[in-house]
């Protein structure tokens, strides 16, 4: 139980290697965050600028989807190994949810 590193040779080396990997990952996270803020600002700006509704609605929805993908894959580490089952179930949930929303905006009209 003492050593659970996946491919641990010299613990010192793997330790430093891991520290570095974590730090690199952290840089990625900050970049992700910057992009998310950027998308958010654009979305708010598009509405604030008063473009046509036909442009704004798909545009902000697209930005939201991209932003959420960032959040899921980087912040929540879904891009890492060992997330196959979470992915399967998140996608299934998204499909069921999408069909529900689609039905509610199309066949509930009166």
């Amino acid at each position: 139980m003492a050593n659970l590193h996946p491919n641990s040779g010299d613990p010192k080396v793997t330790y430093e290697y891991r520290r570095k990997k974590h730090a690199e990952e952290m840089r990625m996270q900050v970049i992700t965050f910057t992009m998310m803020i950027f998308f958010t600002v654009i979305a708010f700006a598009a509405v604030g600028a008063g473009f046509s509704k036909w442009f704004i609605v798909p545009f902000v929805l697209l930005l939201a989807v991209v932003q959420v993908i960032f959040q899921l894959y980087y912040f929540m580490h879904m891009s890492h190994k060992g997330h196959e089952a979470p992915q399967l179930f998140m996608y299934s949930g998204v499909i069921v949810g999408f069909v529900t929303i689609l039905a509610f905006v199309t066949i509930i009209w009166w």
Partner: protein
Amino acid sequence: MAAEQKFTPQTWPESPEQATLEGKNKFLGFWFFLGGETVLFASLFATYLALKDSVPSDTHAKAADLFELPLVFLMTMLLLTSSLTSVFAMYHMKNYNFKKMQQWLFITVALGLGFLGCEIYEFNHYYHEFEHKFTSSAFGSAFYTLVGFHGGHVVFGLSWIIALMIRNAKRGLTLYNAPKFYLASLYWHFIDVVWVFIFTVVYLMGMVG
């Protein structure tokens, strides 16, 4: 007992949240739970979209009359930033740096409380200025239910994180509590995911009618 074992940064495993079987199970189970939550919120969004601006008479306020972008923008920034700070906390968790993890969690909680304060102000404002109530129209019911369920998740998430921080303040990180911290942070990110759709679908799309 294995779960109580003391570690050093060197011996701390690469994925502490999944180093034990309990951890693995919790990890998977919690993700599945989030899959179910996705459907739950999708159902709430669906209802909101079906009932948006559906009010009994023209004297009732509609979405475009109510919302104000600056406040929503502020709330969005608070929550997005708190998502990043909880990533920082997990970064230190993986490096076995308990103190820094607690500090970042503290900041996360503070930001979350800020968000909650804004939301309370917002609801209060709608209620008194616009007579926009849970019981005044179907639109009101749908709005407060969707945004309120999210707010309820924020409250629960904050309580959870605070409870974990206090409970473990003295004993530091173990393989027993690492999964708990990890799941709480996943939950917090999920709250943020939902908010992204709320500010887009409810507020931004609400502004353009």
